[in-house]
C-alpha cells in the first residue's frame, strides 16, 4: 500500500510542474504540440526512473562531498542513452525536441528527486517515485501542449478541428507563459488552497544558497 502511494503522489497531489513549480523550461519550450509534450514527458520519465534507481543503489557508495557532480553524471548518462534511442527510433520527435532533449540533464525535477528521495530510500520506492513524478510531469506537459495546440494551431494530436480560427500567439513564447500561468491558477482554484507565494525550490539542490529563495522569504 505504501509503495502505491509513492507512485500516485507525483501524478496529482505533488505534481512536480503544476504544484511544485519545477522544470519550467521544458514545460514552456516544447509544448507547442500535444505530441511533443508527451514525448518530452516520457523521455524525462525514462531518465528519472533510471537515475532514481541507480542513485538509490549507489547511495552508500557516493561520498557526500561530491554527490552533486556524481548525480549529474549519472543523469547525463541516461540522457545520452535516451537521445540515442529517440534518434534511432523516433527521429521526428528527436528533431522536434532539439536541444531540450539534452537539457533534460539540468531539469530540476530530476536532481530534486535524487536529492529529496532517491538518496534516502530503497530501490523499489525510488523507482515508483521516479515513475510517478515522471508521469505527473508528462500529464502537465500534455495538458499544456493540448491547450496551446488547440488554441494556437486549431488542431489536436495532429487532427484538424473544423470551424475554429486559431490564434497563433498561443504557439509563440508569450502564449506559453500565459497558458502556464492560467493552468497554475486553475490548479490553485481547484485545490482550494492558498497559491504558492514563492517558487517551490525545496527540491532544488541549491535551495540553501539560492538567492531567489532568500529574497522571497
Amino acid at each position, binding site marked *: 500500500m505504501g509503495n502505491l502511494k509513492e507512485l500516485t503522489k507525483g501524478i496529482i497531489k505533488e505534481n512536480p510542474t503544476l504544484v511544485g*513549480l519545477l522544470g519550467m*523550461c521544458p514545460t514552456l519550450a516544447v509544448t507547442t504540440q500535444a505530441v511533443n509534450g508527451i514525448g518530452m514527458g516520457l523521455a524525462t520519465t525514462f531518465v528519472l526512473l533510471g537515475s532514481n534507481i541507480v542513485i538509490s543503489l549507489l547511495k552508500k557508495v557516493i561520498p557526500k562531498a561530491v554527490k*552533486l557532480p556524481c548525480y549529474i553524471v549519472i543523469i547525463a548518462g541516461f540522457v545520452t542513452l535516451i537521445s540515442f534511442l529517440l534518434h534511432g527510433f523516433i527521429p521526428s520527435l528527436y528533431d522536434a525536441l532539439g*536541444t531540450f532533449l539534452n537539457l533534460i540533464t539540468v531539469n530540476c525535477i530530476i536532481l530534486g528527486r535524487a536529492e529529496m528521495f532517491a538518496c534516502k530510500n530503497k530501490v523499489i520506492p525510488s523507482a515508483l517515485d521516479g515513475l510517478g513524478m515522471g508521469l505527473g510531469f508528462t500529464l502537465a506537459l500534455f495538458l499544456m501542449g493540448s491547450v496551446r495546440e488547440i488554441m494556437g494551431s486549431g488542431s489536436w494530436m495532429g487532427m484538424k478541428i473544423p470551424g475554429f480560427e486559431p490564434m497563433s500567439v498561443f504557439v509563440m513564447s508569450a502564449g506559453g507563459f*500565459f497558458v502556464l500561468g492560467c493552468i497554475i491558477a486553475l490548479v490553485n*482554484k481547484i485545490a482550494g488552497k492558498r*497559491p504558492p*507565494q514563492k517558487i517551490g525550490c525545496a527540491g532544488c539542490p541549491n535551495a540553501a544558497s539560492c*538567492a*531567489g529563495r532568500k529574497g522571497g522569504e
Partner: protein
Amino acid sequence: MKGIFIIMLSAILVDNFVLSKFMGICPFLGVSKKLSSSLGMGAAVIFVMTCATAVTYPVYSLVLKPNGLEYLNTVAFILIIALFVQLVEIILKKVMPPLYNSLGVYLPLITTNCAVLGVTLLNIDNGYTFLESIVNAICAGIGFSLALILFSGVRSKLEDADIPKTFKGIPATLIAASIVSLSFMAFSGLIS
C-alpha cells in the same frame, strides 16, 4: 563582421534566451524579485557562460570530435560546467573577496541553469567558430541579464497591484512574463 553583429543582435534581442528560447526560467522567476539580485545573477551568468564556452569549445573540437565521441558532449559539458563553477568559486574567494561577496551566492545556482548548458550546446549545433561562440555566449548572457533586470521592474509594480486571489504569486508573475515576452516579439522583424 556582419555575421558577428547579427549574432549579437539575435542573442540579445530577437532570440532572447529567457523570453523566446525558454532557457533559465527558474532563475528568471526566482531571482528577479529585486533589482540588486537581478544585477548580481546577470553578471554571474555572463561570466560563467563566457568562460564555459571558452573551455567547452576547445574540448569539443580538440578532444571529442577527433576521437568520434561527439555523443558524449552533454556528459562532458555538464561536468566541465559543474567543475568550472566550483573552481571559480574557490578562486574568487581567495583572490577577489569583494567580487565573491557580491556574486558568490549566485554561482552554485548556475550549475543547474539550463541557459549555460544550452548556450554551449547551441554553439556546437550552429557550427559557430570560436570567436562567434564567445560573442554568442557573452550576448546570450547580456540578453539574460536584460530580461532579468527589465522583469524586476515589472515585478516591483506587480507587488502593489490588486490581483484576484487565485492568480496571486506565480500565475500573475507568469502572465506578466508573457506580456514582457510579447513586447520582445516586436524585435523579430529586425533580422529578416
